[in-house]
């Protein structure tokens, strides 16, 4: 396949993200990476669960967490997962404009989520004096949730970069795999969040 075919294909195939060998490789590699990420987050969750009760007598999960905020954050992130599915839907239909639009919405939701998360941390630190150094529980909490937040931030920067870079030239066989795996990443972030809101917040509230 010539470079011309890749960058300016006369017609996009039905699965543009997997039409080239590079695309197939990226697709597979990214899934494998997610397999590794699963272990990474499992280690963090494990640590969190092990240190869950080590609050040094103050700022227990029940006492700290407010469910309203978490619920809003969950809705934001879940919805952003759907919007990114829409984006990929349009990619498969070769409608670049609509794809960008849906990605835009995804990013906006993601930023809103991140904003709330930052607010949440700020709140804990200033209202409760609950920090990374307060107790083993504090360390574990901020590390687990913060790692997820870091993933969100990275995902957002990635998607935004892709959107800007390809704004003018539209979809091709070179960038389609990139969009696709960025959206996989985004879903994975949601997967992790599902466990975070369940294990950290809901189970924390239950006690």
């Amino acid at each position, binding site marked *: 396949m010539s470079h011309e075919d890749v*960058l300016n294909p006369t017609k996009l195939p039905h699965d543009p993200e997997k039409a080239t060998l590079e695309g197939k490789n990226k697709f597979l590699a990214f899934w494998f990476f997610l397999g590794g990420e699963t272990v990474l987050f499992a280690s963090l969750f494990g640590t969190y669960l092990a240190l869950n009760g080590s609050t040094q007598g103050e700022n227990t999960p029940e006492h700290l967490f407010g469910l309203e905020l978490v619920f809003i954050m969950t809705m934001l992130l879940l919805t952003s997962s759907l919007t990114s599915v829409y984006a990929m839907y349009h990619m498969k239909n070769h409608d670049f404009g609509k794809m960008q639009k849906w990605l835009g919405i995804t990013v906006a939701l993601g930023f809103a989520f991140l904003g709330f998360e930052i607010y949440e941390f700020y709140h804990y630190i200033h209202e409760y004096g609950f920090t990374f150094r307060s107790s083993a529980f504090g360390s574990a909490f901020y590390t687990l949730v913060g790692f997820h937040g870091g993933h969100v931030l990275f995902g957002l920067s990635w998607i935004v970069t892709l959107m800007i870079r390809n704004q003018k030239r539209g979809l091709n066989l070179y960038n389609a795999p990139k969009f696709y795996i960025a959206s996989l990443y985004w879903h994975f972030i949601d997967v992790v969040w599902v466990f975070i809101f369940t294990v950290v917040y809901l189970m924390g509230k239950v006690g």
Partner: protein
Amino acid sequence: MSTAVAQKSGLGAAIWDYLTTVDHKKIAHLYLYAGGLFFLIGGLEAMIIRIQLMKPDNNFISAGLYNEMITMHGTTMIFLAAMPLIFALMNAVVPLQIGARDVAFPFLNSLGFWLFLFGGLMLNVSWFTGGAPDAGWTNYAPLSTTSPGHGVDYYVMGLQISGAGTLIGGINFLVTIVNMRAPGMTYMRMPLFTWSVFVTSTLILFAFPALTVGLFLMMFDRMFGSAFFDVGLGGNAIIWEHLFWIFGHPEVYILILPLFGAFSDIFSTFSKKRLFGYSAMVFATVLIGFLGFMVWAHHMFTVGMGPIANSIFAVATMAIAVPTGIKIFNWLFTMWGGQIKMTAAMLWSVAFIPSFTIGGMTGVMLAAAAADYQYHDTYFVVGHFHYVIVGGVVFGIFAALHYWWPKMFGIKLNEKLGKLAFWPFFVGFHLTFFIQHFLGLMGMPRRYWVFLEGQGLETGNMISTVGAFFMAIGTLIFVYNVIYSAKKEKKADGDAWGTGRTLEWAIPSPPPHYNFVQTPLVRGLDPLWVEKMDGKEGMTPAEPLGDIHMPNASFLPFMMSLGTFIAGFGFIYQVDNKAWLIAVFAGMGILLGSMLVRSVKDDLGHHIHKEEIEEDIKKGVAK
């Protein structure tokens, strides 16, 4: 954009070429040079350890320095010598064995190497900045979290950086093997080396994240005041042990499996026989990988997990003897009825069998949980793991290097010198480590700076030290062989040993940088052998002669790794002085900036034109 790799000449150009190369064969060279150097450094550290333990109450080095020495010896040997040397072999061989022109992600391949190198440099810089890490290669908390100075910080950052490189490499090889196989190369026709690299890469994928997390927690505790391992604030030191061993046990199979694969290829090549029980071998490899994840706590029998957990992990550990035994017997029966040619590569392989079997057996003895209450943290364990690591991994690396050297460099290593290096190493190896089992049982714990006089440990330690000197002699002869052969040996054939069976032997030694002029069609297990037996000269091509698409060289991997290196120092020293945060930001800036460049600048590779290839064929450098 369609020129081949820069054709400049001169040293500067050669260095630039290596700094920017994405060619798996050159990256293999880089891994070999770096890994080899670290092996010598680790070996030197081992010699210092042995000299210190030559006699009782010795004062050759101080107690603190001794702890730094063992820590750096273990860490260097495992992460900076054995793993990179294995990656050298993987890079040199896997794409050739599956009939591919490169790995799936040449750019990432180069990134993986540079990350490893900068991580390794970082660890070793600690010698010159006030003390190396000193809490053992296992770095148990709270000894590590309370270790004064910055030694342990170097351990954390160095391993984090090189670990990232390894993880990237692992994913790369997985995808390469899944997606890049030549037509006809089904999974059950893959050479055993490729198979074991596949399983190894899977282990890397699932094992390294645990280490990554462990190192992050350690970093947060040491540098940012968190309390994961600080009992005073409710932390728990055992979390580190679990994370480390969840990584650590699979790690030992990451070390040995690729060499199991290499031995399989070597035994069958030099016995002129197909591998006995191929499917069983594949199955055993997968099974070892699988079981490897369920046994980590056998390193923690004395931690106090209770009899139930200890028993479960004991039995699970013993189970691994079964697939490993299958392998041992299949190797023996590969040779059975064959025609054994005792080359240097074969000599190392043949020596591996009894050595590794002994090591494996002491492993099973260690797995008997209760008995481990006596063995644990004694020289018995040191004896065990050097038997499997030196007798398995190091012998394997030597065997594989002799075997694939012609493919990597176009010349064979001198056979006479090869055998001359073998004997002192082999004898020295058994001298050094066999006696250590007894030392352990006689009451000598490991990681002991001195042993006291009058405890009956003198003779054993002396023998052990003498053995180490023999190993040093063997190593030095090998190094000499490398230099000697580079000067004296003549160019090797494509099928350098004449009995090659797998695809790498179907192309010239060394191969052109696009490897295969035409992707070969694979018609069975041991594809080259199949063709030879059909009376054919080489492989049947699976595609017409045409332009070849190749990736572009890039300097970005080097820059990205440099960025992490700089940021690493920043993290370490910001504890003392916040001004070092500048280094953190600068390093991260370089890293993220390079990533940005990589993602916005299209890099589609280039094509090598048919005419150039035809030219190469005429010159005889391509086939």
